[in-house]
């Protein structure tokens, strides 16, 4: 096998694919990127048996062939090559791949290609087009709330479903929950799906790279995104997301409207003194016009910060995990946020005040 191609293009493709290739205990070849050169196209392929990816690259072919190159080595090597005349040549010589650019030459050992699996496709599903930018926005707005533990696969996923002209993205680890609605036109036959959160980051990375409309297909087991030269497919969870709508409080007893940045700064200060559980104590007293954040750590010290806020309702004193509140602000794009409280053991609701009202976040309070 021997071909020449644009160094920058190859670099980008290898970087994308490298994130997916990984160490696999039983199948070592999965740590490789498979490059298959046919006619004037090189197809890069990587998978960890949970996500799979194929990238097409136009090349100048001298000799067709297939090779499996360890992804880490290839990617590190390519990223360090000085980018001078933009062209790189790859040639397979007796089981090693030789990479030649203007001033650098490298030889990387390859692996047997026989065991490299194929990437599944979804042939029978109906495809539809959607904007990758919007889809990424939806995923990014909620994916940090998904559970890290894999005990409940439904909770370690992002739930995507269609309702009334919107596509809704939800994720929860049962301590907090993020929901984002985005207006995306998708056909009515789109079934709700659960995308494993560890695959979500790969999907986001790929869709951000694509940054245009993508062809989406899904069935019971898989969802795939395709745009021109790039194809990514992920396993989906065969399960049912919990009926989260019933825990969203319908009304509230106390509301505080604060400037997002003020509140975030106060939380950051208080975090210096928070205990190992990240506990912050929030006091909302509409009568006394006080919104106060308080933390205390017996080993470090303590602090109290007042935040300017518009307050209504009853007085409430409640504890939260600092991290859970702060997390949500990355998805709030308005300057001020509303914090609604319903009672001591009920979740606090965070919503943006102006702009798009499409985001909602619930945080459960702490026990003590």
């Amino acid at each position, binding site marked *: 096998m021997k071909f020449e191609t644009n160094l920058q293009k190859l670099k980008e493709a290898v970087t994308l694919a490298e994130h997916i290739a990984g160490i*696999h205990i*039983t*199948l*070592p*070849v999965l740590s490789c990127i498979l490059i298959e050169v046919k006619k004037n196209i090189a197809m890069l392929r990587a*998978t960890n*048996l*949970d996500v*799979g990816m194929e990238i097409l690259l136009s090349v100048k072919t001298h000799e067709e062939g297939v090779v499996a190159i360890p992804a880490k080595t290839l990617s590190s090597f390519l990223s360090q090559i000085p980018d001078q005349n933009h062209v790189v040549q790859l040639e397979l010589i007796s089981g090693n791949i030789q990479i030649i650019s203007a001033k650098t030459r490298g030889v990387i050992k390859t692996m047997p290609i026989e*065991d490299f*699996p*194929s*990437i*599944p496709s979804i042939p029978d599903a109906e495809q539809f087009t959607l904007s990758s930018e919007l889809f990424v926005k939806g995923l990014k707005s909620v994916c940090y709330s998904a559970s890290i*533990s*894999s*005990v*409940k*696969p*439904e909770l370690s996923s992002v739930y995507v479903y269609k309702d009334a002209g919107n596509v809704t993205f939800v994720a*929860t*680890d*049962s*301590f907090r*929950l993020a929901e984002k609605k985005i207006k995306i036109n998708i056909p*009515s036959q789109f*079934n*709700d799906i659960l995308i494993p959160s560890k695959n979500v980051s790969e999907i986001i990375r790929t869709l951000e790279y694509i940054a245009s409309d993508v062809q989406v297909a899904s069935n*019971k*087991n*898989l969802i795939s995104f395709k745009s021109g030269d790039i194809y990514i497919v992920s*396993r989906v969870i*065969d*399960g*049912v997301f*919990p*009926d*989260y709508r*019933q*825990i969203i409080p319908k009304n509230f007893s106390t509301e505080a409207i604060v400037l997002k940045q003020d509140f975030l700064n106060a939380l950051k200060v208080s975090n210096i003194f928070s205990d*190992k*559980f*990240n*506990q912050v104590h929030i006091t909302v007293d509409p009568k006394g016009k006080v919104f106060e954040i308080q933390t205390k750590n017996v080993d470090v010290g303590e602090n109290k910060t007042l935040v300017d806020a518009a307050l209504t309702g009853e007085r409430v004193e409640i504890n*939260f*995990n600092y991290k*859970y509140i702060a997390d949500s602000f990355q998805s709030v794009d308005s300057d001020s946020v509303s914090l609604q409280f319903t009672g001591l*053991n009920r*979740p606090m609701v965070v919503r943006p005040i102006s702009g798009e009202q499409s985001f909602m976040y*619930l945080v*459960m*309070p*702490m*026990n*003590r």
Partner: protein
Amino acid sequence: MNPHSKMWQTALIEIETAVSQANFSTWFKETRILKEEEGVIFLGVPNSFTQEWLYKKFHNSILRILRQMNDGVRALEYVVVKDEEKRGGESKKNGFVAPTLSMPLQDFYINKEDNLNPRYTFDNFVVGPFNELAHAASQTVIKNPGHTYNPLFIYGDTGRGKTHLMQAVGNQIKKLYPDKKLFYMTSERFGSELFIAIQENKVQQFKDRYRKYDVVIMDDIQFFANKEKFQEELFHFFNTFKDSGRQLIFSSDKHPNIITGLEDRLRGRFSAGMVVDIPEPDLESRMVIVRAKCATHNITLPEDVIEHLASSIEDNIREIEGIINVISCQTQLKNKQLSLNEIKNILKNNTKPKKTLSVKEVVKIVSDFYNIDEESINNKTRRKEVVRPRQVVMYILREDFGMSFPSIGEKLGGRDHTTVIHSYEKVKEEIKTDTLLSQEIGQVRSML
């Protein structure tokens, strides 16, 4: 070990020698034979990658090995199965998040494929004298779906457990006959999907979609009243289904013959199978239901409270459920058992408010019911046909509206309160023995 897994174990031993260790542990470790149907072996695989790779690389070898063991094997299909074993118990090691309360997320409330709620089963279905006929009919349907009672038509007022019963039938059929495809829907869903299908000119797809099921359960059929196009579609749907021996189960709040705005041909078809009624649950059944609901919430209530609950909510099991939810919530909050008084308060706040009726209206309803002159209730006459209704009025005013004895006396022609007490006690006693009287009072109450 069943013959399938034995067969697969033997096959795996042979496969292991033929492929590399890496390949074997990656692709074959988590596979198993799900079932065999007319020579086709269905192989369960953990994910689509495995499915694709086995098909591409090992299909012929696996098939050959299986054929050596069993000549009857014609083909091999791969099915991606959910990995149930990996769901271990709750991990307790997430110490750093532990102090945050977790959300009361309710698990997996409906299955996407058949739309059934797995929580509705016969295990938590209370059978009492009031619903034993409906229960027996459903059991017959389960034994022989599509043949004995087709369609099964269950009717009864809201909150009597129709949906629970129907879904339990669905879940049970699913359990007993995993091959049968079934689907649960509300008639409203059928209607709106049909509506969309008509708009998008896709009626044929709509029909095909539902016709692939072996059992269709349709809830709240009364919403089809006066909707001719829906009824027509349902009629055709019905015929296709029944002719091919597939089971249909319907529910409604009324007997098909008295649903107004229903075409006669549908009416006849509904009645052709088995029509069963779920009437109002009797007191004993209601007490059993209260106990069962308490058990699911892990709360125990004293007998007098249970009896009070069961006697205060008469016709609606869903309401009982709602009240138990409130009680369970408050018990947790206060961290102690609630007293009878507290529970009475909850009842007052949570049951549907009684209509406020004036004494005059009560008198009018009772006298209409007994077909006597309204005035005679207030008169001093002691004619037998008037005395009974008058006592009933007093009893109802006292029992249902909690009026004081003197004011009842005053409103009903200025009688002494002892007269009222006497009448009240008398009716109260007689209800226990006289079923006619208690039925009469029941009917009057339903008219209030």
